[in-house]
């Protein structure tokens, strides 16, 4: 039976019939496929573009209002982030076009899926196919943007407007339609809240040394930036230049890492014609942060879609939803305490891979729910049912097969390259659902599961860094990354949102005993609870079993926060309704006469207890932005002083100041190399002699000598030779540094002769060496050594 099915699938997947329909043409030595394009029927197109026929599509019904709310919130976030970035750079080199472009790109990801879904929906209320669901289309838009980025890289044309303009138009349409449906006060509050929340996110993402609007200026002043972005972008640079994932500090041996995010952002950077590091500080926050929160709320909307409709209330006016969202993100206890309990907000925002992987994960789950709601799922579920002969429609079968055999494995692969933890969690979810619903017995699902496992197994060794695995170490994360004395609170408080959801659901379904719980599990009535718990448990375990370097276990354990949050948001309405009903039935609400004597003591108590948490939330929301503003002013003051003094917004003063910063000549020289033609860079390796102290001593002040090597490959996009840190510097085992051999002796004159360099370059596969060395007055000069083939 299974063999027969496999044969059928193989026949369906056989490309030969398709290839027979393709016309081949010869281009140079190779054959290029040219699909046979049918002649366009313009009359049909004219008919379809008739405004009278299109009008019904340009409307947003009640069913889409919440989705539009998400889009509007996201668009506001991207605009605010763009504006803040631009405002932060006033006085420095500050073109407005890239900012507008990334805002447009963000809108493309946020708004386009809504309208694509709307168009595919037609006059129906329900989306027929999972592939036409908003989450799936959002994933498609992310992929589209990456493809445009590849195209931009290949053609050296900044293609951002091609995406930003449609994105902007769709966003504008959404906002206009959304505002027309609005009640003034709730809309105003929502918009105001969005702006406030975005300012907080801006503070978090730009309040660290990882990313900041004045990134280059900070770097050039005294090198006081974190080394992680250099690590990520060194790999993406090597991928761009040589097609190899490597950190490129002494040749380009393959590195194992989840470099998908770095690759993706580099592609997006090409869209606006900038480099990866600049994009990290501008494009990444503006595009990904709105997408992150939009994906969470979108998942909540997808979940709400399967709940009874009476529980729903317009998202924009549902203050409870937003209260939960800000409480879970900004935090109800001081930031220091959150950090102490390993609830690291900063890490969420500064880890690009995590911040992009989580929304992708959420969107995959959202698409999964759309699939589950569709006829395609029913086709799969009915497959093989005893005593029933089901013959599903071919379209449903196609939809199911594409989801099971293409979408899920592909997404796992993608998640693996974005963030390993998310791949493993997603795989766990897939396997668990298939097991719990008994779907694994269906041949199509069985095949899909096998594919998923194989894809994950093959991806894992490519993206896992062996050095990060410190071996078995019970309760490692709890012991070493939670503040001393507070370890026992970790399971309770770190997973608090998971517990809140589980408790809420138990309360909702009146599950109070183990027997009732058993019954609910057996009847699959609380599969959602099981999934939330599964993500929490599977995310919790790695850090408690294994020592994962640098606190990276948080990227496993933190996922449950966002996952549970989406589920809580989806249920808030139901819970509130039930709570009201209980209160009403118990006649707890006394008929108030309106005087102070009728103020309930329980209300006073609630206010007294809740007030510190609310105040803290407000203080937390201010702390990060305050830090950014202070850092910005301090940097401007210092640069202005170097520039001869004057206003800290005066472009001339700042320009002079920047030109006098310590690393301005070095950074300029490295960025000049990055602007060389690709062919030239591809053939070259970069060499910086150890005598160039400005470079090799860049991070000495805070004892980070081991990371200096990453700077040149990252900024210049050219691999180095003999670029290991100076002799005597303790080389870290992390960051794929163990791919190279540490220096056993200081560099000597014989090591830097043309012959010696060429030998090394040729051995590493390069035909030229670019030497960057200071002249007599310390200005770096570039020279070229041709090494032949």
């Amino acid at each position, binding site marked *: 039976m299974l063999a027969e099915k496999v044969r059928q699938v193989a026949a369906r997947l056989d490309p030969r019939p398709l290839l027979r329909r393709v016309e081949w043409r010869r281009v140079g030595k190779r054959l290029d496929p040219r699909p046979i394009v049918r002649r366009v029927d313009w009359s049909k197109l004219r008919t379809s573009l008739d405004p009278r026929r299109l009008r019904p599509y340009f409307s947003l019904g009640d069913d889409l209002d919440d989705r539009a709310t998400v889009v509007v919130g996201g668009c506001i976030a991207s605009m605010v982030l763009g504006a803040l970035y631009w405002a932060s750079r006033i006085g420095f080199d500050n073109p407005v076009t890239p900012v507008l472009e990334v805002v447009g790109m963000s809108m493309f990801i946020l708004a386009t899926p809504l309208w694509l879904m709307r168009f595919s929906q037609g006059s129906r209320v329900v989306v027929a196919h999972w592939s036409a669901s908003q989450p799936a289309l959002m994933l498609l838009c992310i992929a589209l943007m990456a493809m445009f980025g590849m195209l931009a890289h290949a053609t050296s044309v900044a293609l951002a407007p091609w995406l930003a303009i449609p994105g902007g138009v769709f966003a504008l349409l959404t906002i206009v339609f959304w505002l027309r449906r609005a009640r003034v006060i709730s809309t105003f509050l929502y918009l105001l809240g969005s702006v406030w929340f975005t300012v907080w996110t801006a503070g978090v993402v730009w309040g660290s040394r990882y990313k900041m609007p004045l990134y280059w200026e900070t770097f050039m002043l005294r090198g006081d930036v974190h080394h992680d972005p250099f690590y990520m972008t060194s790999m993406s640079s090597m991928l761009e230049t040589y097609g190899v994932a490597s950190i490129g500090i002494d040749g380009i041996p393959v590195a194992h890492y989840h470099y998908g995010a770095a690759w993706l952002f580099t592609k997006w950077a090409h869209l606006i014609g900038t480099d990866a590091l600049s994009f990290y500080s501008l494009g990444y926050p503006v595009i990904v942060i709105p997408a992150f929160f939009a994906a969470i709320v979108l998942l909540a909307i997808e979940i709400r879609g399967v709940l009874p409709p009476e529980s729903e209330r317009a998202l924009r006016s549902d203050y409870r939803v937003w209260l939960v969202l800000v409480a879970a993100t900004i935090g109800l206890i001081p930031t220091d305490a959150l950090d102490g309990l390993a609830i690291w907000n900063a890490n969420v925002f500064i880890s690009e891979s995590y911040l992009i992987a989580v929304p992708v994960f959420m969107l995959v789950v959202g698409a999964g729910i759309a699939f589950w709601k569709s006829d395609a799922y029913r086709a799969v579920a009915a497959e093989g049912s005893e005593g029933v002969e089901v013959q599903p429609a071919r379209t449903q079968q196609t939809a199911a097969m594409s989801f099971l055999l293409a979408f899920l494995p592909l997404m796992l692969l993608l998640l693996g390259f974005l963030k390993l933890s998310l791949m493993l969690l997603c795989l766990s979810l897939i396997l668990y659902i298939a097991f719990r619903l008994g779907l694994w017995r269906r041949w199509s699902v069985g095949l899909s599961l096998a594919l998923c496992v194989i894809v994950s197994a093959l991806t894992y060794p490519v993206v896992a860094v062996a050095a990060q695995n410190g071996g078995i170490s019970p309760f490692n994360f709890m012991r070493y990354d939670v503040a001393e004395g507070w370890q026992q609170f970790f399971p*309770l408080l770190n997973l608090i949102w998971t*517990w809140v959801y589980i408790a809420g659901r138990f309360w909702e379904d009146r599950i109070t*005993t183990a027997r*009732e719980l058993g019954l609910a599990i057996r009847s699959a009535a609380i599969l959602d609870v099981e999934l939330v718990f599964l993500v929490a448990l599977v995310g919790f375990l790695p850090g408690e079993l294994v020592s994962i370097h640098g606190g990276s276990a948080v990227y496993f354990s933190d996922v449950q926060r966002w996952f549970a949050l989406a589920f809580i948001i989806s249920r808030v309405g139901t819970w509130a309704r039930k709570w009201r009903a209980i209160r009403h039935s118990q006649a707890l609400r*006394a008929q108030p006469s309106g005087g102070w*004597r009728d103020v309930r*003591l329980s209300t006073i108590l609630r206010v007294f*207890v809740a007030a510190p948490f609310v105040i803290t939330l407000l203080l937390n929301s201010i702390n990060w932005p305050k830090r950014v503003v202070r850092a910005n002013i301090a940097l401007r003051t210092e640069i202005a002083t170097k520039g001869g003094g004057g206003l800290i917004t005066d472009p001339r003063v700042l320009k002079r100041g920047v030109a006098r910063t310590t690393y301005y000549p070095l950074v300029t020289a490295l960025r000049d190399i990055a602007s060389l033609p690709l062919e030239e860079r591809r053939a070259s390796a970069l060499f910086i002699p150890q005598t160039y102290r400005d470079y090799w001593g860049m991070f000495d002040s805070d004892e980070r000598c081991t990371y200096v090597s990453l700077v040149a490959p990252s900024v210049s996009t050219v691999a180095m030779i003999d670029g290991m840190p100076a002799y005597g510097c303790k080389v870290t085992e992390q960051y794929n540094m163990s791919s190279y051999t540490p220096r056993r002796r200081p560099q000597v004159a014989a090591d830097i002769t043309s012959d010696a360099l060429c030998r090394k370059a040729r051995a590493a596969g390069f035909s030229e060496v670019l030497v960057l060395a200071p002249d007599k007055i310390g200005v770096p000069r570039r020279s070229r050594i041709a090494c032949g083939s």
Partner: protein
Amino acid sequence: MAAIYWLARTGFDNSPWPVVRAAALALILIDTPYLIRMLIRKRTLEYGWVTSYSFLWLMTIAFTVGAGWLVPKIGFTPFIPLAGVATVAFLVLLIDWARHSGWKATVAMFVAASLFSTWTAGVVWGRIYKSPLFLEMMILDGKVHHDGVSLAAVANMLRTYHVPSPGLDGIPYMAYHWGTPWMFAQWSNLAGFNLTEFYQLVFPVTMIPLFFGGIIAFALEARYAIFQRRMADMSVAYSAGHGAEFDPRLGPSFWLVFLAATIGLMPITGMDALGVWTSNLMISESYTVATPVALLLLSTTIVFWQCGGDEILKGSGRPKDYLFVAIVLPAGIVALGYLKISLMILGLLGALYVAARLGAFRKWPVALVGVITTLLVVLTYPRVSLAAHREGIVPLDFLKGFVPLDWWPYFFLFQFFWSLVYVVLRLRQEGARTLGDFVTLAKAGRILDVELVILVALVGVAPGLVLHIDGGSAFYFSDVQRWLSVGLLLAGVGTLIPRLPRWRWSDLRMVAVAFVALPFAISMARNSFHWTSRMLRANSATRLALYPVADRAAIPEGIRALRQLGDPVKLATGLANAPNNNPVRGLLGLGELSPESKRTTAVFVPQSEDRYWTILTRPNSCAFSGFVVPALAGMSMIDGMPPVGCTLSPYYGISLYPKRTRPQTPEDETPGTLCRRALSLGFKRVLTLRFDESGKIDKQPTECLRKK
């Protein structure tokens, strides 16, 4: 506690007698009131404030202090017979209690009390304020807290000269709450301790049980008064301990609340950040003594009121009722001022508020007592409050100084946690749901306890939020509400807090509650070990530092090393070679002089004697070096102010003396100059101390005669 002290000194000069004497004094203080109460009960079932357990306890304290005060006058101490009786009484009571409670409860109580004592021992000896090895630490490197030295100095001045003074340059009166040093001096007389020993050994062994015993005694008295008031005849109910609906035993809930309130449910770092300090209540002797005394006074007042005292308002009060209102209560409040000012102020305000709420001021005798008590407090205040401590208005001073900004919003919630719990549970018990209900209950006088708790909480927190009070001492105002509300909560455990249900694994709500409670329980367990381990680590570190250098390399640091650090010979050698050994021992030897001789003698240590002036080595400790002679030798210094250039603390009575404006010159050291100074300060002899290279003291007495 005594055993822990003794064990902590293993390997050092460790005579068991001081420890036994300290334990015996504790037994006298704890057993006597209970014994007398039992004897009274055998004669009559009537209960009244005079025969109440709490008042008997206060009287025991007063009696023992009085006995100590008489000792130098009569030249005889009744300590041995008293200790013998107390020990026998303790054994009798223990056997009787065990017989009634069963062996399981006895063993459980014994184990629990022992474990709790290890925690208290850790708290009191886990910081550098007090230590079983205090003298050894002083001898080793002088790294001891100046509080221990300065307070011992004041107590010694009280003992020798009967004047509260730091004794740095004569003995001017120091306006300070010197009640505890004075009491300690009297008890030292009674039991034969020197004051340094008293602060390090006897205070923890006697006063910490008094602190917790006082809270529990208050809880038991309040238990009848507030929560069993439905009983028609309180005076019988007290004595008989009956009542069908009343379970007199202290169940698990009682002890759970007690442990949670004392040891804490949150990690220590969290409590510290919120200004809820667990260690301060045991390192501040005055607070440790004043709190139980205040609670016992309050208990007595409650008993007075419940057992006929309210007749005063009807004009039919008995003489003993008027005695209480006119003498005992005012005297008690004023005495609290000498123990801890905060408690006097809170006590007065509490008494006035309750009297006002009960309409007692409509009766002129009570009103008169109120006015007189207020006047007495006003007169007492300047005598017990150091002028240097009155540093003016600084809004939110306590928060600014001791609570990180991020945690300010939580300050009231956590600071008032126990008060809040009590108020909520009591209002729930009374069925109050709205503000109107609250007002109605208050008007009916049914929640006077709640009002009192709210008053003490609000008034207690105010000084720290308005005034600058040095060293976080505002805590001693704001913390009082904790013990008042905990005492009341313990009193109402049986009725306020639902009984702990039987554990059922199948009940998910119970599992959830247990899951949430688990980290708090673990925190409590960790807290209970925190201070003890800190004490042991400090003990180990001191021993290790005394060991020969050659041996140290083979011994790891920390608690595990203790087993290897008990060699008496090596420790003695280490001490003998320590820089402060001879100076400290020499000064202790001076303390052996007769009281009469000490009373007429002042000690002078020239500024050139570095061996003395550098005994204390903690940062900024130069300001406190002058206290070492008064603390160890029990004699006042003359010209003992710190050297020029030393940053002086305005506190500890240092500001009573003029600051040194120029270095000491040879003229200042001449016998003539010294004698002039000594005579003007009331001394007849000057003992000039000089230290040789090994630190041995060369005493040069100078007799000073006033010219006729």
